[in-house]
């Protein structure tokens, strides 16, 4: 059993807060559809001074927890109502997980968001006084006042009173703190990510790695968040640009990052953003300057990825994003190695096995088509070069022509097997679907590759 500890604030424990205040939070006027209790955006959340004070505390508490525990690997929002005298920040010390209780989230978000906007506007103004070309920016921040909304004007005044006493560096660190809280609650907020791009300057690799861990923490809740992946890219570029990583360690650094995004890949199936980011990382290494990353190192990396993606698509049959990644890997491999044909043939064999175990999965058939196309294009390329750099294994199969025939025979074998299976088992829905997919496959081969399999196979296409 793991121990869940309720974190108390340093100095002021939560039980000092008047109970009525906590009650006020539960009772405060919330408009919108009551039955739809989870949709906080529809609710009108009113933040008065007492609530603001409480939000500040929760915010502080959350940041402290994130700062203190370097091993945190999961964040979540737990749907529940408020319990009196307890901090809504739940920190599991043994397994390093942190969570917020959902009742405080709308208040915390709104409160932090207002403060954050104020800070953003302020920092934009200061930068406009220093640079000449920012007259447009300052006029942009003006109209907010003119809107004549009394409530927002009042809020503005309140915020200025509270925050204007901060020095510039204090304001920036407050902004970073707020942006972190906002991102962790709602990572789709581009403004907050951009603020971090402007003001987070990693001076050492440790600081950068800490930021990477934070993004991973965000992704443990929202694994397919595109803003997060763009930010990760930015971090990697920054690290290489500022040469925070030693040239000899670049390959390790990227491998480490690849390992880190395994988690979002696992927790959300067909996570396209994650897979394309993964390929971006790999490409970065493969195209890196030869003097820094040696060819051997690149090959090791490619090999590792090929193996990993193989185990992945074995157990994730309908994840086409994963298949797509593998196709790109195979393509890279053909350019990199002298002889990729055996691997491609093996790929088709494995795919065939899966087609029989997991009947009726379209992604398997699509993957098959791409692999065939890859192989045929590769063979063509070899032919165009007059066979001068023909793959070694083509000898084994009796030349390039024969090799193409091998691929063709493989397909007609598969089609025959599917056909015979279908006669035995017409009841099964999945088998029927597989049969239809197989027909489509035959049609495709006829159209695209001009392979006529209908002669050898009695299929009604």
């Amino acid at each position: 059993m793991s121990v869940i500890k309720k974190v108390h604030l340093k100095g002021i424990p939560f039980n000092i807060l008047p109970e009525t205040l906590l009650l006020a939070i539960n009772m405060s006027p919330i408009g919108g559809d009551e039955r739809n209790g989870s949709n906080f955006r529809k609710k009108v959340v009113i933040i008065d001074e007492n609530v603001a004070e409480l939000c500040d505390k929760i915010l502080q508490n959350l940041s402290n927890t994130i700062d203190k525990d370097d091993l945190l690997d999961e964040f979540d929002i737990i749907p529940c109502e408020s319990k009196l005298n307890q901090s809504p920040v739940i920190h599991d010390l043994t397994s390093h997980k942190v969570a917020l209780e959902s009742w405080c989230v709308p208040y915390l978000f709104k409160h932090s968001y207002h403060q954050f906007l104020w800070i953003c506007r302020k920092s934009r103004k200061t930068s406009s006084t220093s640079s000449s070309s920012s007259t447009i920016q300052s006029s942009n921040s003006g109209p907010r006042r003119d809107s004549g909304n009394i409530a927002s004007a009042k809020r503005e005044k309140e915020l200025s009173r509270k925050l204007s006493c901060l020095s510039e560096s204090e304001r920036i660190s407050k902004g970073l703190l707020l942006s972190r809280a906002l991102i962790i609650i709602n990572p789709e907020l581009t403004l907050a990510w951009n603020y971090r791009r402007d003001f987070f300057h990693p001076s050492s690799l440790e600081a950068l790695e800490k930021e990477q861990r934070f993004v991973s923490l965000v992704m443990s809740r929202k694994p397919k968040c595109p803003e997060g992946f763009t930010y990760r890219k930015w971090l990697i570029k920054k690290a290489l640009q500022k040469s925070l990583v030693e040239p000899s360690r670049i390959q390790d650094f990227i491998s480490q990052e690849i390992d880190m995004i395994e988690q979002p890949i696992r927790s959300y199936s067909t996570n396209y953003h994650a897979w394309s980011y993964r390929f971006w990382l790999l490409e970065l290494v493969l195209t890196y300057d030869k003097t820094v990353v040696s060819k051997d190192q690149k090959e090791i990396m490619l090999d590792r990825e090929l193996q990993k993606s193989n185990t992945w698509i074995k157990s994730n049959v309908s994840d086409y994003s994963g298949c797509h990644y593998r196709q790109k890997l195979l393509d890279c491999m053909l350019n990199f190695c002298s002889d990729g044909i055996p691997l491609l043939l093996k790929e088709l064999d494995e795919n065939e096995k899966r087609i029989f175990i997991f009947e009726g999965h379209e992604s398997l058939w699509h993957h098959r088509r791409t692999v065939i196309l890859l192989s045929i294009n590769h063979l063509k390329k070899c032919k165009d070069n007059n066979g001068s750099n023909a793959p070694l294994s083509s000898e084994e199969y009796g030349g390039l022509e024969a090799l193409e025939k091998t691929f063709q025979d493989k397909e007609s074998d598969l089609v025959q097997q599917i056909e015979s299976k279908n006669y035995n088992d017409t009841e099964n829905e999945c088998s029927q679907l597989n049969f239809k997919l197989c027909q489509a496959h035959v049609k495709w081969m006829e159209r695209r590759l001009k392979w006529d399999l209908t002669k050898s196979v009695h299929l009604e296409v």
Partner: protein
Amino acid sequence: MVKLFAISVIRRPIDGPPDGRCVLLKGSYDLASFGFFQRASVKEFMSFSSQTIVERTSPATRQSVKEQEFFCHVYVRVDGLSVVLVSDIDYPSRVAHTLMTKVLDDFSSKFEWRSVGPEALDAYRDLDQTLAKYQNPREADALTRIQTELDETKIIMHNTIEAVLERGEKLDDLVAKSDNLSAQSKMFYKTAKKTNSCCNF
């Protein structure tokens, strides 16, 4: 992903009153892919829906119920001993059903299941092993071949849990009424669908 989440063996009364309660004899779970703070609720929900579906499945029937990204496979034997297997939608359902037959055969050969209580089964670990072993459906390949002609029962497919419920019943009401679900799980049920949508917290 091809994954098995839970297997539970349930005793369904057939002689008693028609609304007799099912008894969950033994359950085994693999919830590592769920969020840490959600696991307890997910577990409660899996056993809740397993029992709900078994109560609404007549003896000697096989059903496969799809609910969002999960599949609940149910098999109630003629004598009322039942098994539910929760998997994701990619797990081949024929393999799942063969596996379930095997689980029930093993279970009834080892225990006097009509009288045994859930407490007596604490040390029974076979279910955990089965769950771990058959995460890879290839393991079950040999099993499938033996069983093909053995079982002629047709598998009834449903697209939602609601389709299994009796007329006038609603899942929301059942959840609200249930004693087996904690308050937090009920809250979780209301919010669960929204987590993955964009710009929502």
